[in-house]
């Protein structure tokens, strides 16, 4: 069988009638059945829905009809994204039995483009975490090193693609939750600009930061998925009317000596020496590709984690107020309404979510709002200004995705602040609203993957994808 780990591979196999969409689906489910018990990456499978879609594609092939761009491509969806009639738990006990009555726009668009949805993937509870260890349904294991975390919060979505249990997947990124697990699992992963992809049907964590984006085995496929889900959606007023370029056409264009900014602040202390070595090799490869490398300064980088954890927790405390046991999800009954709220939330949320609700409520509370929340928003403005200044000098910014390679399961769970600090390279772009991709940049000791991150200006996805694609084609993953 030809390689069906890429969109083109699936397309060719189906067109040449080497396999039917239905057979391909069965292959994937067989592999899932074999590997998922160990990885814990899928929480729910959707075989009936997948078969209906595969049969529709096989019908089109039988009739000799033109095929949609993602015809028969098996994909997975992070469990914070709503799927009609399929459980959507957010990795939380409070939504253990929640069944959304509608599909998220991104899911609807994938299916309309012919993709086959295999199931829902594990994640940190309400997307809060950097290791997937905050899921109420147990951690996901990194398919490249089973004793290590896959990253988070979209750990399941990264793991299923890395393990060959889906061709592509959707994750969500609030402070790095797509890019960091992409880095940890050795695959490309992208968050588009804030407003690029509709969030209708995404269960909210921090609304000024949350974004939906793709994982795939190569940059070309990341671009194809983004192409499908991007663009204005009347159901989401934060989705923009900015035109969506033809990303595949942009990838084919030669690089025109782009200027890549290397921000000094991202290469300060605290970076694992193995990561540093690989990123330096990545920089050398970009130079070989004809890029001009420019030293830049982004002076507020060191304040990003502090600003991020004020803003993200404040928004989370507000968004998560809806889980009160009245309309959906868990209810712990009590004779008093307020006691019912308190008990339901106390029993339904896990430790990281409770910690963030307490912190977020605190920074918004009377007497502390100015000192924390308003201060955080002001520092956010300074960080966004760092990016605007940088993009007057360079076309894209190059950084590591994570200061550390995938760490061991259980190694960092006892110290939340240390876990937060590891988000240092990703939260900046989240706060600024710019697009970012993580692309594989070699493996430490031929084992632990390193991710290289590229930021572009708002709605500069095409440039970011083009650079990442050129890097990948030049052997970036084998550095």
């Amino acid at each position, binding site marked *: 069988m030809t390689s069906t780990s890429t969109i083109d591979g699936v397309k060719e196999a189906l067109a040449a009638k080497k396999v039917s969409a239905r057979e391909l689906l069965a292959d994937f489910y067989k592999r899932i059945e074999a590997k998922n018990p160990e990885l814990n990456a899928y929480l729910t499978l959707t075989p009936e829905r997948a078969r209906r879609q595969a049969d529709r594609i096989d019908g089109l092939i039988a009739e000799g009809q033109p095929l949609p761009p993602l015809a028969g491509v098996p994909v997975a969806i992070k469990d914070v994204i709503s799927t009609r009639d399929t459980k959507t738990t957010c990795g939380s006990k409070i939504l253990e039995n929640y069944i959304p009555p509608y599909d998220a726009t991104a899911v609807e668009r994938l299916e309309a483009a012919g993709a086959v949805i295999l199931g829902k993937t594990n994640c940190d509870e309400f997307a809060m975490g950097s290791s997937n260890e905050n899921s109420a349904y147990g951690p996901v294991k990194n398919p490249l090193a089973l004793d290590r975390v896959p990253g988070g919060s979209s750990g399941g979505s990264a793991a299923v693609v890395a393990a060959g249990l889906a061709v592509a997947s959707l994750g969500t990124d609030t402070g790095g939750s797509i890019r960091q697990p992409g880095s940890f699992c050795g695959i490309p992963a992208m968050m588009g600009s804030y407003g690029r992809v509709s969030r209708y049907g995404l269960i909210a964590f921090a609304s000024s930061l949350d974004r939906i984006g793709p994982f795939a085995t190569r940059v070309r496929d990341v671009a194809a998925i983004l192409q499908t889900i991007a663009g204005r959606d009347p159901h989401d*007023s934060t989705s*923009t009317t900015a035109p969506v370029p033809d990303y595949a056409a942009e990838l084919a264009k030669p690089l025109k000596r782009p200027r890549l900014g290397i921000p000094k602040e991202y290469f300060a202390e605290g970076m694992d020496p193995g990561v540093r070595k690989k990123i330096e090799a990545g920089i050398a490869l970009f130079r070989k590709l004809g890029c001009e490398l420019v030293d830049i300064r982004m002076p507020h980088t060191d304040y990003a984690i502090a600003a991020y954890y004020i803003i993200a927790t404040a928004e989370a405390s507000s968004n998560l107020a809806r889980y009160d046991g009245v309309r959906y999800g868990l209810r712990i009954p009590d004779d008093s309404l307020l006691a019912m709220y308190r008990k339901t939330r106390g*029993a339904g949320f896990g430790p990281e979510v409770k910690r963030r609700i307490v*912190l977020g409520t605190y920074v918004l509370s009377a007497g502390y709002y100015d000192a924390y929340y308003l201060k955080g928003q002001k520092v956010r403005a300074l960080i966004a200004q760092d990016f605007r200044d940088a993009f007057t000098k360079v076309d894209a910014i190059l950084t590591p995705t994570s200061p550390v390679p995938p760490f061991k399961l259980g190694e960092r769970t006892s110290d939340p602040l240390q876990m937060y600090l590891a988000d240092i390279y990703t939260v900046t772009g989240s706060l600024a609203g710019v697009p970012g991709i993580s692309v594989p940049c070699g493996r430490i000791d031929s084992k632990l993957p390193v991710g290289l991150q590229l930021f572009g200006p708002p709605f500069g996805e095409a440039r970011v994808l083009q650079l990442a694609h050129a890097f990948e084609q030049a052997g970036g993953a084998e550095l």
Partner: protein
Amino acid sequence: MKISREDVLRVAELAYLDLSEAELETYRAQIDEILEYIGKLNELDTTNVEPMAQVLAEDQSADATLREDLIVPCAVAEDVLAHAPDPEPPYFRVPKVIER
């Protein structure tokens, strides 16, 4: 110390969140450490900085985000109620809140 046990209790009350004694002390200590770290923001003079509440693309005009107020059918009430913890169609039932 940035945050006291009483602060955590007050905030948990605002957030309608039951916390056990053990949780209370664990979160207090952890959040105290986080707030200590967050204190580094005070190194920055932000007197003349406008707070950034939202990322809005500069090309995003009001007519791109505001639509006409049209009535469209939305027949999901039954589906929504079907998964409620205690439905009494067309209502959600909750414990009594008004004393007679």
